[in-house]
């Protein structure tokens, strides 16, 4: 840092950020925060309809079974926040499910090698998506649409449409099993642990330079490029993260549901819906990773609620359609109000920023990411 800018030592240290309570309140009022409120409301409704859902064991199982879609949403988040789409996600899930089914078989010894192969495949697909988007300049909507068709076709051609069978139990345990005999909860499904790890990793990554750069690229790619960011590589890694997330979802789904070509179908749209429900803006530059995951939980809770209410399953699409339109419209409204200045978070007095260089203003970077 330039010596030019050492603060005058006499400068008064001022609060360069709002208090924690105020920031929490502000956060809840953003679309990315509101999804948590929505989630709580939905969960409360489910418990009201079916109190046994609230028991720790069924609740933790609910989290476990929602983990794959939540992880997919986390993956999709990286791509959306960079201003792109990943429509190939569903096909990647299907591919991974079938790869596991066909290559592992009953042979426990193959679990690790195939697992590594799956991860490599996931990374490779993300790389191809990313490079075609960034270097060939094809819109990601089209690239990943092409990938979705080609990949699914390839897998079906290779397997003749049907998988050999479920892979070894040791592999399926990842998605099906859990730590047994836990007090209170009874069981902690592995998917819950993996989701927690993925969320923590994602959260950490978004606070790392990479994550901040990713958001900057989604917000203004030209400016990012002129600050020395390798835009193509930042975006490509986002696609790789997305495909890797789809891979993890696939691994969990093999365990949860078994091997079938329809596993993963429509995952891309569900994941995008979840991300958008989490207040992440299509077009990039805005939104929280954890809100995207919360969006997935909100969506799944909604379906569960509909099941418990005995709503005919064919109406489910309709309800989902209404919810996403309403949620996104509400988010857009809240943005407009912020723009017009009639909400508190945007209204704030400006003053000269003063500080001694003694104390880091930690946490303040939430400002950019927060809405």
């Amino acid at each position, binding site marked *: 840092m330039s010596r030019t800018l050492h603060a005058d030592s006499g400068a008064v240290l001022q609060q360069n950020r709002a208090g924690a309570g105020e920031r929490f309140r502000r956060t809840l009022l953003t679309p990315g925060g509101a999804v948590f409120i929505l989630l709580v409301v939905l969960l409360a409704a489910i418990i009201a309809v079916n109190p046994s859902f609230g028991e720790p064991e069924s609740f933790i199982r609910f989290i476990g079974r929602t983990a794959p879609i939540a992880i997919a949403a986390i993956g999709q988040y990286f791509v959306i926040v960079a201003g792109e789409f990943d429509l190939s996600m569903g096909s990647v899930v299907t591919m991974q499910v079938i790869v596991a089914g066909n290559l592992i078989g009953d042979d426990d010894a193959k679990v690790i090698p195939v697992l590594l192969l799956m991860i490599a495949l996931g990374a490779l697909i993300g790389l191809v998506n990313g490079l075609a988007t960034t270097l060939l*300049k094809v819109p990601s909507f089209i690239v990943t*649409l092409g990938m979705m068709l080609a990949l699914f076709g390839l897998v*079906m051609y290779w397997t003749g449409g049907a998988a050999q069978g479920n892979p070894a139990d040791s592999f399926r345990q990842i998605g099906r099993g859990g730590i047994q005999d836990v007090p209170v909860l009874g069981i902690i499904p592995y998917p819950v642990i993996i989701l927690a790890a993925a969320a923590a990793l994602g959260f950490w990554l978004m606070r790392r330079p990479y994550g901040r750069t990713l958001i900057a690229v989604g917000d203004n790619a030209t400016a*990012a490029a002129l600050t020395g960011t390798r835009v193509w590589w930042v975006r490509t890694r986002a696609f790789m993260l997305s495909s890797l997330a789809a891979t993890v979802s696939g691994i969990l789904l093999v365990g949860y549901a078994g091997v079938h070509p329809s596993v993963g179908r429509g995952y891309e749209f569900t994941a995008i819906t979840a991300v958008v429900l989490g207040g992440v803006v299509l077009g990039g530059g805005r939104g929280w990773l954890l809100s995207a995951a919360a969006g997935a939980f909100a969506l799944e809770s909604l379906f569960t609620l509909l099941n418990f209410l005995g709503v005919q399953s064919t109406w489910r699409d309709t309800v989902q359609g209404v919810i996403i339109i309403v949620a*996104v419209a509400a988010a*857009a409204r809240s943005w407009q109000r912020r723009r017009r200045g009639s909400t508190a978070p945007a209204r704030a007095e400006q003053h000269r920023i003063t500080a001694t260089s003694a104390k880091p203003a930690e946490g303040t970077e939430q400002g950019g990411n927060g809405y």
Partner: protein
Amino acid sequence: MSSTWKAGNSFGRLPSTHIVYLVALLTLVVGAVLVATTGRNFFSPGNISSILTGTSVLGFIAIGQTLVILVGSLDLSVPYVTSLASLIAAGVMANSSSNILPGVLLALGVSAVIGLANGLIVAGLKVHGFIATLGMGLIISGYLATNFKGSFGQTPFAFRLVGATGLGPVPVSTLIMLACAVLAMVLLHRTRVGHHIYAVGGDLNVARMSGIRVQTPIITAHIICSVLAGMAGLLLASRLGVGSPTVGSQGGYDLLSIAAVVLGGTLLAGGKGSITGTLGGVLIFAMLDNIMSVMQLNPFVKDVVRGIVIVVAVAVYARRTILKRPPRFGHGQPEEPATKQEVAA
């Protein structure tokens, strides 16, 4: 900042519509050769009719999709509108030719109302077109799945003629589709709302500052898109003789039409593109399907080819749209501005 001067080679100077048709021509030549190797004639009336039939349903939808994409939105609800329109038409007509007009009008009317709703959600509630129409599609699909099980109604003989008649090898349905394309072109290039569609898709704020009521073109584009999806539904009702709740989603027309539009050189972000390009894109898809069917490719492999062609074809001219100033010095390949290149993705 940049100028229209493009890369030094002549390929780079071509407008993207021309490239679309070059790709179409290439497909045609390759197709003719491949088809000939199976002992068939690519240009036989039956085959041409088969290709053209393949263009009409997707054509209707892709024309509408072009307008919506030009205005900066998207329409993912088209397959469901198509299905709904086919059901309404077949249901109202109920095999009686006196009901054709009411059936057509009601089907198109309901489509228009859905388009209006899409437009209002996008323009009024400021919901991204992707989400608005995805949601609308889900809403309709739930309605269809709950209320219609299997095919429904029947279209009368006179109406079925539309789907079955041709002028020589050219199906009437294709001619109607082309007529719609011409109307859409006139709309885009010769009417105010058409100019405003380009303006709003190009830059919403500029359009607003220039005194355009930006809702109007957005809503208009969505209505027309839905009505054209309704037209596709009518055509399908005519060809199938019945209405079907799944006929739209069977075709995958949502993503395929978007792919055709982009293949036709229209910018996915809006503001730039043409109907002629879209027709080229649709034609490429139709020929590709025809060739692969004649070659009896495994249906799964067809998807692989389709996926690759979409990406590769778009890549051919996507790279080209990076505009540069003419080089002042040196006559070699002008080097690309590194930053812009990185960013343009």
